[in-house]
Protein backbone atom coordinates (compact mmCIF):
# COMPACT_ATOMS: atom_id res chain seq x y z
CA UNK A 1 0.00 0.00 0.00
CA UNK A 2 2.64 2.47 1.11
CA UNK A 3 4.69 3.40 -1.92
CA UNK A 4 6.93 6.29 -2.79
CA UNK A 5 3.89 8.07 -4.10
CA UNK A 6 2.88 11.07 -2.11
CA UNK A 7 -0.72 12.03 -1.57
CA UNK A 8 -1.29 15.57 -0.52
CA UNK A 9 -4.30 16.55 1.52
CA UNK A 10 -7.01 14.43 3.06
CA UNK A 11 -9.42 13.26 0.43
CA UNK A 12 -11.99 12.27 3.03
CA UNK A 13 -12.72 15.77 4.23
CA UNK A 14 -13.13 17.32 0.85
CA UNK A 15 -15.01 14.54 -0.78
CA UNK A 16 -12.72 14.81 -3.76
CA UNK A 17 -9.01 15.17 -3.99
CA UNK A 18 -8.97 18.25 -6.18
CA UNK A 19 -10.11 20.67 -3.55
CA UNK A 20 -6.98 20.27 -1.51
CA UNK A 21 -4.64 21.17 -4.30
CA UNK A 22 -3.52 24.69 -4.77
CA UNK A 23 -4.05 26.37 -8.08
CA UNK A 24 -1.22 25.14 -10.26
CA UNK A 25 -0.20 28.54 -11.49
CA UNK A 26 -1.26 30.72 -8.58
CA UNK A 27 2.10 31.65 -7.07
CA UNK A 28 0.51 33.21 -4.04
CA UNK A 29 -1.96 30.43 -3.44
CA UNK A 30 -0.34 28.30 -0.80
CA UNK A 31 -1.93 25.11 0.34
CA UNK A 32 -3.12 25.43 3.94
CA UNK A 33 -0.70 23.78 6.35
CA UNK A 34 -3.22 21.16 7.46
CA UNK A 35 -3.55 19.88 3.95
CA UNK A 36 0.15 19.45 3.42
CA UNK A 37 0.20 16.14 5.23
CA UNK A 38 3.68 14.81 5.60
CA UNK A 39 5.08 17.01 2.85
CA UNK A 40 6.84 19.44 5.25
CA UNK A 41 8.53 16.55 7.06
CA UNK A 42 9.54 15.04 3.75
CA UNK A 43 10.99 18.32 2.55
CA UNK A 44 12.86 18.54 5.84
CA UNK A 45 14.41 15.12 5.20
CA UNK A 46 15.47 16.13 1.70
CA UNK A 47 17.10 19.33 2.90
CA UNK A 48 18.84 17.53 5.75
CA UNK A 49 20.22 14.83 3.50
CA UNK A 50 21.38 17.30 0.87
CA UNK A 51 23.13 19.62 3.30
CA UNK A 52 23.78 22.16 0.60
CA UNK A 53 21.19 24.51 -0.81
CA UNK A 54 18.72 22.68 -3.04
CA UNK A 55 16.90 24.47 -5.87
CA UNK A 56 13.12 24.32 -5.68
CA UNK A 57 13.04 22.54 -9.03
CA UNK A 58 15.13 19.68 -7.64
CA UNK A 59 12.86 19.34 -4.63
CA UNK A 60 9.82 19.18 -6.87
CA UNK A 61 11.51 16.60 -9.03
CA UNK A 62 12.54 14.43 -6.09
CA UNK A 63 9.08 14.61 -4.53
CA UNK A 64 7.53 13.68 -7.85
CA UNK A 65 3.90 14.60 -7.40
CA UNK A 66 3.22 17.70 -5.34
CA UNK A 67 2.85 20.94 -7.23
CA UNK A 68 5.26 23.82 -7.04
CA UNK A 69 2.85 25.73 -4.82
CA UNK A 70 2.54 22.79 -2.45
CA UNK A 71 6.29 22.36 -2.10
CA UNK A 72 6.68 26.08 -1.53
CA UNK A 73 3.89 25.90 1.02
CA UNK A 74 5.67 23.07 2.81
CA UNK A 75 8.94 25.02 2.85
CA UNK A 76 7.24 28.07 4.28
CA UNK A 77 5.34 25.98 6.78
CA UNK A 78 8.58 24.38 7.90
CA UNK A 79 10.35 27.74 8.13
CA UNK A 80 7.55 29.15 10.27
CA UNK A 81 7.53 26.12 12.54
CA UNK A 82 11.26 26.32 13.16
CA UNK A 83 10.97 29.99 13.94
CA UNK A 84 7.91 29.71 16.15
CA UNK A 85 9.16 26.79 18.18
CA UNK A 86 12.61 28.27 18.56
CA UNK A 87 14.23 25.20 17.09
CA UNK A 88 17.93 24.75 16.39
CA UNK A 89 17.59 25.00 12.65
CA UNK A 90 16.37 27.56 10.16
CA UNK A 91 15.36 27.24 6.56
CA UNK A 92 17.04 29.87 4.47
CA UNK A 93 16.91 30.77 0.84
CA UNK A 94 20.44 30.86 -0.40
CA UNK A 95 22.26 30.65 -3.73
CA UNK A 96 19.14 29.90 -5.73
CA UNK A 97 17.89 27.20 -3.40
CA UNK A 98 16.78 26.27 0.09
CA UNK A 99 19.04 25.12 2.85
CA UNK A 100 18.93 24.08 6.49
CA UNK A 101 21.22 26.18 8.62
CA UNK A 102 21.80 26.79 12.28
CA UNK A 103 20.49 30.11 13.57
CA UNK A 104 23.11 32.83 14.04
CA UNK A 105 22.50 33.03 17.79
CA UNK A 106 23.73 29.46 18.17
CA UNK A 107 26.96 30.23 16.31
CA UNK A 108 29.31 30.41 19.31
CA UNK A 109 28.40 26.93 20.54
CA UNK A 110 28.56 25.28 17.14
CA UNK A 111 31.90 26.92 16.53
CA UNK A 112 33.23 25.63 19.82
CA UNK A 113 32.12 22.11 19.00
CA UNK A 114 33.59 22.09 15.53
CA UNK A 115 36.73 23.93 16.67
CA UNK A 116 36.54 25.68 13.39
CA UNK A 117 38.52 28.77 12.72
CA UNK A 118 35.94 31.21 11.40
CA UNK A 119 36.76 32.55 7.94
CA UNK A 120 38.66 35.78 8.24
CA UNK A 121 37.10 38.59 6.29
CA UNK A 122 39.44 41.54 6.35
CA UNK A 123 38.50 44.99 5.16
CA UNK A 124 40.40 44.75 1.87
CA UNK A 125 38.75 41.39 1.26
CA UNK A 126 35.26 42.69 1.90
CA UNK A 127 35.76 45.92 -0.02
CA UNK A 128 37.16 44.16 -3.06
CA UNK A 129 34.43 41.57 -2.88
CA UNK A 130 31.80 44.31 -2.68
CA UNK A 131 33.17 46.02 -5.78
CA UNK A 132 33.28 42.77 -7.74
CA UNK A 133 29.77 41.88 -6.57
CA UNK A 134 28.21 45.14 -7.72
CA UNK A 135 30.31 45.78 -10.80
CA UNK A 136 30.61 42.27 -12.18
CA UNK A 137 31.95 41.34 -14.53
CA UNK A 138 34.74 43.83 -13.91
CA UNK A 139 38.46 44.14 -14.47
CA UNK A 140 41.19 44.54 -11.91
CA UNK A 141 41.71 48.11 -13.04
CA UNK A 142 38.09 48.97 -12.30
CA UNK A 143 38.48 47.61 -8.78
CA UNK A 144 41.70 49.49 -8.25
CA UNK A 145 40.10 52.70 -9.45
CA UNK A 146 37.57 52.51 -6.63
CA UNK A 147 39.85 51.45 -3.81
CA UNK A 148 42.91 53.40 -4.91
CA UNK A 149 45.24 50.49 -4.16
CA UNK A 150 46.61 47.47 -5.95
CA UNK A 151 44.07 44.65 -6.06
CA UNK A 152 46.13 41.75 -7.33
CA UNK A 153 46.95 40.08 -4.02
CA UNK A 154 43.41 40.40 -2.69
CA UNK A 155 41.95 39.03 -5.93
CA UNK A 156 44.27 36.05 -5.80
CA UNK A 157 43.12 35.30 -2.26
CA UNK A 158 39.49 35.70 -3.24
CA UNK A 159 39.92 33.30 -6.15
CA UNK A 160 41.65 30.78 -3.88
CA UNK A 161 38.78 31.06 -1.46
CA UNK A 162 36.43 30.58 -4.39
CA UNK A 163 34.49 33.73 -3.69
CA UNK A 164 35.52 35.24 -7.01
CA UNK A 165 36.23 33.63 -10.35
CA UNK A 166 37.59 34.66 -13.70
CA UNK A 167 34.77 34.67 -16.21
CA UNK A 168 36.51 35.81 -19.33
CA UNK A 169 38.33 38.68 -20.91
CA UNK A 170 37.14 42.15 -21.68
CA UNK A 171 37.16 43.11 -25.33
CA UNK A 172 39.34 46.10 -24.65
CA UNK A 173 43.01 46.92 -25.20
CA UNK A 174 45.11 44.33 -23.43
CA UNK A 175 42.09 42.04 -23.11
CA UNK A 176 42.08 42.25 -19.31
CA UNK A 177 40.59 39.43 -17.26
CA UNK A 178 37.04 39.84 -16.03
CA UNK A 179 36.10 38.86 -12.50
CA UNK A 180 32.73 37.90 -11.06
CA UNK A 181 31.44 36.44 -7.82
CA UNK A 182 30.73 32.73 -7.42
CA UNK A 183 27.99 30.56 -6.07
CA UNK A 184 30.13 30.16 -2.94
CA UNK A 185 29.96 33.92 -2.50
CA UNK A 186 26.17 33.72 -2.27
CA UNK A 187 26.44 30.76 0.09
CA UNK A 188 28.99 32.32 2.40
CA UNK A 189 27.02 35.53 2.75
CA UNK A 190 23.63 33.85 2.84
CA UNK A 191 22.28 35.59 -0.24
CA UNK A 192 19.45 34.05 -2.31
CA UNK A 193 20.85 35.76 -5.41
CA UNK A 194 22.78 38.83 -6.49
CA UNK A 195 19.66 41.00 -6.38
CA UNK A 196 19.58 40.45 -2.64
CA UNK A 197 22.78 42.44 -2.14
CA UNK A 198 22.25 45.45 0.11
CA UNK A 199 21.57 48.49 -2.06
CA UNK A 200 24.43 50.82 -2.88
CA UNK A 201 23.67 54.17 -1.34
CA UNK A 202 22.99 56.64 -4.10
CA UNK A 203 25.26 59.53 -3.37
CA UNK A 204 25.13 61.05 -6.81
CA UNK A 205 28.22 62.27 -8.56
CA UNK A 206 30.87 64.47 -7.08
CA UNK A 207 30.25 67.52 -9.21
CA UNK A 208 26.55 67.55 -8.34
CA UNK A 209 27.36 67.17 -4.68
CA UNK A 210 29.78 70.05 -4.79
CA UNK A 211 27.23 72.22 -6.49
CA UNK A 212 24.71 71.35 -3.82
CA UNK A 213 26.92 72.63 -1.01
CA UNK A 214 28.34 76.04 -0.60
CA UNK A 215 31.52 76.26 -2.56
CA UNK A 216 34.08 78.26 -0.73
CA UNK A 217 36.97 78.77 -3.00
CA UNK A 218 38.92 81.85 -2.12
CA UNK A 219 39.01 82.04 1.68
CA UNK A 220 40.25 78.58 2.21
CA UNK A 221 43.88 79.39 1.87
CA UNK A 222 43.56 81.75 4.80
CA UNK A 223 41.76 79.24 6.97
CA UNK A 224 44.44 76.65 6.67
CA UNK A 225 47.09 78.32 8.70
CA UNK A 226 44.77 78.29 11.68
CA UNK A 227 43.57 74.74 11.21
CA UNK A 228 46.79 73.04 10.34
CA UNK A 229 48.15 70.59 12.88
CA UNK A 230 50.87 71.69 15.26
CA UNK A 231 54.20 71.75 13.44
CA UNK A 232 56.19 68.71 14.23
CA UNK A 233 59.10 70.81 15.47
CA UNK A 234 57.21 72.08 18.53
Amino acid at each position, binding site marked *: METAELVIGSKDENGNGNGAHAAPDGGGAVTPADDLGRLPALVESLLFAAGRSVPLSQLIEALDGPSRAEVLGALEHLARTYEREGRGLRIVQVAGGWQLRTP*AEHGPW*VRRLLRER*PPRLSRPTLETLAIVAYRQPCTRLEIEAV*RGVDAEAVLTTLIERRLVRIVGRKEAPGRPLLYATTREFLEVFGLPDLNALPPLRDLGDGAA*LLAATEVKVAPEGVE*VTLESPPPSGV
Partner: protein
Amino acid sequence: MNAPCTVRLPIFEGPLDLLLHLIKKNEVQITDIPIASITDQYLAMLEELPELNLDGAGEYLVMAATLMYIKSRMLLPSPGEDPEVEEDPRAELVQQLVEYQRFREVAVALGERNVLSRDVFAGPGEPMVPGADHETPVRDASLADLLDALRDVLERIRPPRAHDIQREGLSIRACVARILAGFVLGPRRDFASLFGPDADRAEVIVIFLALLELIRLRVVRARQAERFGAITLELAVGTVEEATERVRDLGQTEQWRGGEGQDGDSGARDR
Protein backbone atom coordinates in the same frame (compact mmCIF):
# COMPACT_ATOMS: atom_id res chain seq x y z
CA MET B 1 62.37 66.56 16.45
CA ASN B 2 60.58 64.46 19.02
CA ALA B 3 56.87 64.34 18.47
CA PRO B 4 55.05 65.70 21.51
CA CYS B 5 52.84 62.70 21.73
CA THR B 6 52.88 59.38 19.98
CA VAL B 7 49.67 58.30 18.40
CA ARG B 8 49.00 54.74 17.45
CA LEU B 9 48.01 54.97 13.87
CA PRO B 10 45.27 52.83 12.54
CA ILE B 11 46.22 50.70 9.59
CA PHE B 12 45.15 52.38 6.41
CA GLU B 13 44.00 50.47 3.39
CA GLY B 14 45.31 53.04 0.99
CA PRO B 15 45.32 56.74 0.28
CA LEU B 16 41.54 57.01 -0.03
CA ASP B 17 41.10 55.27 3.28
CA LEU B 18 43.56 57.67 4.90
CA LEU B 19 41.77 60.64 3.34
CA LEU B 20 38.39 59.48 4.58
CA HIS B 21 39.91 59.05 8.03
CA LEU B 22 41.12 62.65 7.97
CA ILE B 23 37.79 63.90 6.71
CA LYS B 24 36.01 62.13 9.54
CA LYS B 25 38.52 63.32 12.11
CA ASN B 26 38.12 66.91 10.99
CA GLU B 27 34.36 66.56 10.97
CA VAL B 28 34.04 68.00 7.52
CA GLN B 29 31.86 66.92 4.63
CA ILE B 30 33.32 64.85 1.85
CA THR B 31 31.73 67.34 -0.46
CA ASP B 32 33.40 70.32 1.14
CA ILE B 33 36.93 69.33 1.98
CA PRO B 34 39.18 72.10 3.30
CA ILE B 35 41.77 70.99 0.84
CA ALA B 36 44.77 72.90 2.15
CA SER B 37 44.32 71.75 5.69
CA ILE B 38 43.62 68.17 4.69
CA THR B 39 46.63 68.15 2.40
CA ASP B 40 48.90 69.27 5.22
CA GLN B 41 47.51 66.67 7.54
CA TYR B 42 47.79 64.02 4.87
CA LEU B 43 51.47 64.83 4.34
CA ALA B 44 52.05 64.87 8.07
CA MET B 45 50.48 61.43 8.34
CA LEU B 46 52.65 60.13 5.54
CA GLU B 47 55.74 61.17 7.45
CA GLU B 48 54.48 59.43 10.52
CA LEU B 49 53.64 56.20 8.82
CA PRO B 50 56.96 54.67 9.77
CA GLU B 51 57.42 51.98 7.21
CA LEU B 52 55.31 52.51 4.22
CA ASN B 53 55.86 49.33 2.39
CA LEU B 54 57.30 50.06 -0.97
CA ASP B 55 54.40 48.70 -2.94
CA GLY B 56 51.89 50.88 -1.22
CA ALA B 57 54.04 53.97 -1.00
CA GLY B 58 53.55 54.89 -4.62
CA GLU B 59 49.81 55.05 -4.26
CA TYR B 60 50.08 57.33 -1.22
CA LEU B 61 52.53 59.58 -3.01
CA VAL B 62 50.35 59.89 -6.09
CA MET B 63 47.52 61.02 -3.84
CA ALA B 64 49.84 63.51 -2.13
CA ALA B 65 50.69 64.97 -5.51
CA THR B 66 47.02 65.11 -6.47
CA LEU B 67 46.17 66.92 -3.25
CA MET B 68 48.93 69.44 -3.73
CA TYR B 69 47.84 70.03 -7.27
CA ILE B 70 44.26 70.66 -6.19
CA LYS B 71 45.47 72.91 -3.40
CA SER B 72 47.53 74.98 -5.80
CA ARG B 73 44.63 75.29 -8.19
CA MET B 74 42.38 76.47 -5.44
CA LEU B 75 44.84 79.07 -4.21
CA LEU B 76 45.50 80.52 -7.61
CA PRO B 77 43.04 83.04 -8.95
CA SER B 78 41.10 81.47 -11.74
CA PRO B 79 42.26 82.61 -15.15
CA GLY B 80 38.70 82.89 -16.41
CA GLU B 81 36.81 86.03 -15.54
CA ASP B 82 33.77 84.11 -14.36
CA PRO B 83 34.63 81.89 -11.39
CA GLU B 84 31.08 80.53 -11.26
CA VAL B 85 31.53 78.62 -14.46
CA GLU B 86 34.82 77.07 -13.52
CA GLU B 87 34.75 73.52 -12.31
CA ASP B 88 35.68 72.92 -8.72
CA PRO B 89 39.17 71.37 -8.80
CA ARG B 90 38.07 69.01 -6.06
CA ALA B 91 35.25 67.47 -8.08
CA GLU B 92 37.13 64.45 -9.34
CA LEU B 93 38.58 63.62 -5.96
CA VAL B 94 35.19 64.03 -4.32
CA GLN B 95 33.70 61.67 -6.86
CA GLN B 96 36.36 59.11 -6.06
CA LEU B 97 35.90 59.47 -2.33
CA VAL B 98 32.13 59.22 -2.57
CA GLU B 99 32.42 56.12 -4.69
CA TYR B 100 34.86 54.51 -2.29
CA GLN B 101 32.67 55.46 0.65
CA ARG B 102 29.67 53.74 -0.94
CA PHE B 103 31.55 50.48 -1.38
CA ARG B 104 32.98 50.74 2.12
CA GLU B 105 29.45 50.89 3.46
CA VAL B 106 28.29 47.79 1.59
CA ALA B 107 31.52 46.02 2.53
CA VAL B 108 30.65 46.61 6.18
CA ALA B 109 27.10 45.41 5.52
CA LEU B 110 28.48 42.24 3.90
CA GLY B 111 30.78 41.60 6.83
CA GLU B 112 27.87 41.94 9.23
CA ARG B 113 25.79 39.32 7.48
CA ASN B 114 25.44 35.85 8.92
CA VAL B 115 28.52 34.36 7.37
CA LEU B 116 28.57 30.63 6.70
CA SER B 117 30.99 28.74 8.98
CA ARG B 118 31.34 31.82 11.16
CA ASP B 119 27.83 32.66 12.34
CA VAL B 120 25.68 30.01 10.76
CA PHE B 121 26.42 26.42 9.86
CA ALA B 122 25.05 23.92 7.42
CA GLY B 123 25.41 20.18 7.56
CA PRO B 124 27.82 18.52 5.16
CA GLY B 125 25.01 16.46 3.69
CA GLU B 126 25.39 13.47 1.46
CA PRO B 127 27.47 13.99 -1.62
CA MET B 128 25.10 14.11 -4.55
CA VAL B 129 26.14 12.16 -7.57
CA PRO B 130 27.07 14.84 -10.02
CA GLY B 131 25.60 14.59 -13.45
CA ALA B 132 22.79 12.37 -12.22
CA ASP B 133 19.91 12.12 -14.62
CA HIS B 134 18.02 15.12 -13.31
CA GLU B 135 20.77 17.37 -14.51
CA THR B 136 20.58 17.46 -18.26
CA PRO B 137 23.71 19.13 -19.55
CA VAL B 138 22.60 22.07 -21.62
CA ARG B 139 25.68 24.11 -22.24
CA ASP B 140 29.29 23.60 -23.12
CA ALA B 141 31.55 24.04 -20.14
CA SER B 142 34.09 26.79 -20.65
CA LEU B 143 37.74 26.56 -19.76
CA ALA B 144 36.95 28.52 -16.60
CA ASP B 145 34.32 25.94 -15.65
CA LEU B 146 36.78 23.13 -16.26
CA LEU B 147 39.40 24.87 -14.17
CA ASP B 148 36.88 25.29 -11.36
CA ALA B 149 36.16 21.58 -11.50
CA LEU B 150 39.90 20.83 -11.56
CA ARG B 151 40.33 22.97 -8.47
CA ASP B 152 37.68 20.87 -6.72
CA VAL B 153 39.58 17.72 -7.55
CA LEU B 154 42.92 19.15 -6.47
CA GLU B 155 41.45 20.28 -3.18
CA ARG B 156 40.37 16.77 -2.37
CA ILE B 157 43.83 15.34 -2.86
CA ARG B 158 45.30 14.07 0.34
CA PRO B 159 48.55 15.64 1.45
CA PRO B 160 51.53 13.61 0.25
CA ARG B 161 52.69 10.96 2.62
CA ALA B 162 56.16 11.20 4.09
CA HIS B 163 57.39 8.13 2.29
CA ASP B 164 56.04 8.46 -1.16
CA ILE B 165 56.68 5.60 -3.45
CA GLN B 166 58.03 6.62 -6.82
CA ARG B 167 55.14 6.79 -9.20
CA GLU B 168 55.13 5.48 -12.63
CA GLY B 169 55.48 8.25 -15.13
CA LEU B 170 52.20 9.05 -16.79
CA SER B 171 51.99 10.46 -20.26
CA ILE B 172 49.22 12.50 -21.76
CA ARG B 173 48.89 9.82 -24.42
CA ALA B 174 48.30 7.13 -21.83
CA CYS B 175 45.73 9.33 -20.13
CA VAL B 176 43.93 10.01 -23.39
CA ALA B 177 43.59 6.28 -23.86
CA ARG B 178 42.44 5.89 -20.29
CA ILE B 179 39.78 8.57 -20.60
CA LEU B 180 38.48 7.06 -23.83
CA ALA B 181 38.44 3.59 -22.31
CA GLY B 182 36.09 4.93 -19.66
CA PHE B 183 33.51 5.64 -22.33
CA VAL B 184 33.17 1.95 -23.11
CA LEU B 185 30.65 1.75 -20.31
CA GLY B 186 28.50 4.56 -21.63
CA PRO B 187 28.57 7.68 -23.76
CA ARG B 188 28.68 9.92 -20.73
CA ARG B 189 30.77 10.14 -17.62
CA ASP B 190 31.35 12.57 -14.82
CA PHE B 191 34.31 14.83 -14.85
CA ALA B 192 35.07 13.73 -11.29
CA SER B 193 35.16 10.07 -12.29
CA LEU B 194 38.33 10.68 -14.30
CA PHE B 195 40.35 10.97 -11.16
CA GLY B 196 40.84 7.97 -8.97
CA PRO B 197 40.81 8.34 -5.20
CA ASP B 198 44.57 7.86 -5.00
CA ALA B 199 45.50 10.22 -7.79
CA ASP B 200 48.20 12.63 -6.78
CA ARG B 201 48.60 16.17 -7.97
CA ALA B 202 50.80 15.38 -10.93
CA GLU B 203 48.49 12.61 -12.07
CA VAL B 204 45.43 14.83 -11.82
CA ILE B 205 47.09 17.49 -13.88
CA VAL B 206 48.25 15.10 -16.59
CA ILE B 207 44.74 13.64 -16.81
CA PHE B 208 43.32 17.13 -17.01
CA LEU B 209 45.70 18.05 -19.82
CA ALA B 210 44.69 14.89 -21.64
CA LEU B 211 41.07 15.92 -21.28
CA LEU B 212 41.80 19.39 -22.65
CA GLU B 213 43.50 17.73 -25.57
CA LEU B 214 40.46 15.53 -26.26
CA ILE B 215 38.18 18.55 -26.09
CA ARG B 216 40.45 20.45 -28.44
CA LEU B 217 40.41 17.55 -30.88
CA ARG B 218 36.59 17.58 -30.62
CA VAL B 219 36.48 13.97 -29.56
CA VAL B 220 34.99 14.74 -26.18
CA ARG B 221 32.63 17.48 -25.14
CA ALA B 222 32.38 18.93 -21.66
CA ARG B 223 28.81 19.87 -20.84
CA GLN B 224 27.22 21.47 -17.85
CA ALA B 225 23.61 21.87 -16.76
CA GLU B 226 24.18 25.18 -15.05
CA ARG B 227 27.00 27.44 -14.06
CA PHE B 228 28.95 25.89 -11.18
CA GLY B 229 27.07 22.66 -11.87
CA ALA B 230 28.73 19.32 -12.29
CA ILE B 231 30.53 18.79 -15.57
CA THR B 232 29.57 15.83 -17.69
CA LEU B 233 31.82 14.53 -20.42
CA GLU B 234 30.35 12.99 -23.49
CA LEU B 235 31.78 11.42 -26.56
CA ALA B 236 31.45 13.76 -29.49
CA VAL B 237 31.88 10.87 -31.90
CA GLY B 238 29.88 7.68 -32.24
CA THR B 239 31.94 5.04 -30.51
CA VAL B 240 35.09 4.65 -28.50
CA GLU B 241 36.74 2.94 -31.46
CA GLU B 242 35.92 5.88 -33.66
CA ALA B 243 37.28 8.21 -31.00
CA THR B 244 40.50 6.25 -30.76
CA GLU B 245 40.86 6.33 -34.53
CA ARG B 246 40.26 10.05 -34.58
CA VAL B 247 42.80 10.70 -31.88
CA ARG B 248 45.32 8.63 -33.76
CA ASP B 249 44.64 10.45 -37.02
CA LEU B 250 44.52 13.92 -35.61
CA GLY B 251 47.12 13.32 -32.97
CA GLN B 252 49.69 12.14 -35.49
CA THR B 253 50.80 15.61 -36.28
CA GLU B 254 49.91 17.21 -33.04
CA GLN B 255 52.29 18.71 -30.59
CA TRP B 256 51.71 16.39 -27.72
CA ARG B 257 52.83 13.48 -29.75
CA GLY B 258 55.66 15.24 -31.46
CA GLY B 259 56.76 16.81 -28.21
CA GLU B 260 56.95 13.49 -26.48
CA GLY B 261 58.91 12.02 -29.28
CA GLN B 262 61.50 14.73 -29.08
CA ASP B 263 62.29 14.48 -25.43
CA GLY B 264 61.90 10.76 -25.52
CA ASP B 265 64.10 10.09 -22.53
CA SER B 266 62.20 12.35 -20.17
CA GLY B 267 59.82 10.75 -17.73
CA ALA B 268 56.78 11.72 -19.74
CA ARG B 269 56.50 8.69 -21.93
CA ASP B 270 54.84 5.38 -21.72
CA ARG B 271 56.62 2.66 -19.90
